[in-house]
């Protein structure tokens, strides 16, 4: 079967949904498979207009795959470290907080990458994405230091780097 280029996103979504279905049913009986195929196709079809087109999402490239793995490992490390910091703040008898809003611009361009950045900020304790409007983020941080760091977060540069690589490819 020939897959047309513009339909690739559709079939990738279909494949992902089917994989998820197979993982949660964990049976390869033909009836299960049939239901899975029909449902995945229907869901992908209904949401056709909402699927992320290549211009809006990261491309699946071997060159960036390593960077993505690195990104998520680093994010995990950041989550552990920040969790520890917030736990210390909460448990200290005297509350040493200096809540701050910080408003800044980002170099990250693709909508999906901005979503990932926003989610990463919220997942990391101590910072919380309050608003994203175009390239401007409003972030609430529990201490002033966390707010200062957030505006120049290295994870943001990582995402921007990945986009550079994609543009070059």
């Amino acid at each position: 079967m020939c897959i047309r280029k513009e339909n690739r996103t559709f079939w990738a979504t279909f494949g992902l949904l089917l994989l998820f279905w197979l993982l949660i049913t964990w049976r390869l009986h033909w009836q299960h498979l049939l239901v899975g195929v029909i449902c995945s196709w229907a869901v992908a079809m209904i949401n056709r207009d909402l699927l992320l087109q290549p211009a809006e999402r990261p491309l699946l490239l071997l060159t960036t795959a390593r960077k993505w793995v690195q990104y998520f490992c680093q994010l995990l490390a950041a989550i552990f470290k920040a969790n520890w910091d917030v736990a210390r703040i909460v448990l200290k008898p005297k509350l040493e907080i200096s809540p701050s809003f910080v408003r800044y611009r980002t170099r990250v361009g693709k909508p999906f990458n901005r979503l990932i950045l926003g989610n990463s900020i919220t997942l990391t304790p101590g910072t919380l994405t309050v608003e994203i409007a175009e390239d401007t983020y409003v972030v609430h941080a529990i201490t002033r230091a966390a707010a200062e760091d957030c505006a120049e977060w290295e994870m943001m540069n990582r995402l921007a780097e990945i986009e550079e690589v994609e543009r070059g490819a």
Partner: protein
Amino acid sequence: MEILVIIFLLAGMFFFVVGVVGLLRLPDVYCRLHATTKCDTLGAGLILFGLVLFAGISVDSVKLLLIILFIWLTNPTASHIIAHAAYRNNEPTAEGTHTLDKTERGAACD
């Protein structure tokens, strides 16, 4: 192995306790959200990961890993929506909340 599982469960519970203490002690909506997001990310993450270790390599552990993945995807989204709603409604903030504006500097960097 069981000792490792217990360590993970206890660590997870520790973060849940910290989350609840934070929820009670911190002054405003935003700060409280910081405490509760922490619960969900590390607390639930560690407890579920302990269960993954307990289940060993099996169907159950795959499903548990999927649950972790979905919690980590949906939790920040939900927290963001709550914060966004509070921000839009000009929810009162704690005393001494600063606002730093770095947009001009960010533009200069580009």
